[in-house]
């Protein structure tokens, strides 16, 4: 038997509607104290995971989000027995409780911004060529040549990042008006200036989307992507006391033997 998990919810009641999860198998709520974890029970591990599984999984989590506060599980977290699920709930109860309370009535929106990173970097490289005629690292030896090259690259990267920071600060300022929390990832690639997640109250969704529409319409060569509302994937927080970094979970199934 394999138990596939979907999300922790702030309810210990049965799920009233029939909801079919992965492989069309009905999901149910395993209660634990004042919360529960929604799972589906399978006779064996799903062999070939496809994009349909991914979409179905997300569909279930979002469906739950309509009625409950949810902490989505990372996709394909599974257990061998219900007892193991309960042990896991026991271990992490405090962490889950804290997160559920914090995330109640809130949703996540994603903003991604593309800028002309390559163009900007080239501009910086060009102007640095003019400056470095005067650079005080003579390259009359292999060691110094090595350093000079590294240093030039370092200066270019540094200026590039500073430019990015300036740009991000402005963008973030506009989006931060209605938010409870945020998580910013800068320059995941040269052109992907920003990948941000914003946690906002459900009632403020429309305001947030309006801000996006305005910014997107503003002149400039930035490209914007908005997605949401999502379950709060990026805002699950564990502290040491909540035992996230614990010894191995009791029965998380592995492809082979114990991994390490």
């Amino acid at each position, binding site marked *: 038997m394999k138990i596939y998990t979907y999300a922790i919810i702030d309810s210990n009641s049965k799920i009233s509607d029939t909801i079919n999860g992965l492989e069309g198998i009905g999901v149910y709520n395993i209660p634990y104290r004042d919360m529960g974890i929604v799972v589906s029970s399978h006779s064996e591990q*799903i062999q*070939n995971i*496809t994009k*349909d599984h991914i979409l179905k999984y997300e569909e279930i989590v979002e469906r739950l989000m309509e009625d409950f506060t949810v902490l989505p599980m990372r*996709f394909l977290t599974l257990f061998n027995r219900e007892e193991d699920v309960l042990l896991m709930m026991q271990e992490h109860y405090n962490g889950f409780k804290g997160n559920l309370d914090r995330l109640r009535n809130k949703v996540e929106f994603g903003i991604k911004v593309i800028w002309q990173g390559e163009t900007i970097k080239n501009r910086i490289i060009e102007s640095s060529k003019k400056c470095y005629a005067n650079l005080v690292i003579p390259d009359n030896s292999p060691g110094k040549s090595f350093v000079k090259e590294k240093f030039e690259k370092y200066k270019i990267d540094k200026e590039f990042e500073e430019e990015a920071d300036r740009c991000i600060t402005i963008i973030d300022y506009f989006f931060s008006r209605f938010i409870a929390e945020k998580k910013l990832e800068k320059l995941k690639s040269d052109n992907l200036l920003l990948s941000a997640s914003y946690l906002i109250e459900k009632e403020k969704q429309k305001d947030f989307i309006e801000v996006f529409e305005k910014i997107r319409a503003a002149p400039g060569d930035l490209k914007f992507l908005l*997605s949401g509302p999502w379950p709060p*994937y990026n805002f699950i927080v564990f502290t040491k006391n909540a035992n996230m970094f614990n010894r191995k979970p009791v029965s*998380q199934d*592995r492809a082979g033997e114990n991994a390490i």
Partner: protein
Amino acid sequence: MDSVITESKEVTLLEILDRILDKGVVISGDLVISLAEIDLIYVGLKVLISSVETMERLRGAPFAGATEEPT
């Protein structure tokens, strides 16, 4: 118009993948290296319970081929 729909479906899938594969509640066999009881290095030994090759294929080409029947 077909390509517009395909493209935005693709973006949607990428956005979903961005979240469900690495984020959310992560219960896994992890390793924390600490010094004098201060956790310094967190080594995420995430063990994905699925065919990694399948996930590779899904990430590289979200719309490659038709839906597969489960075996």
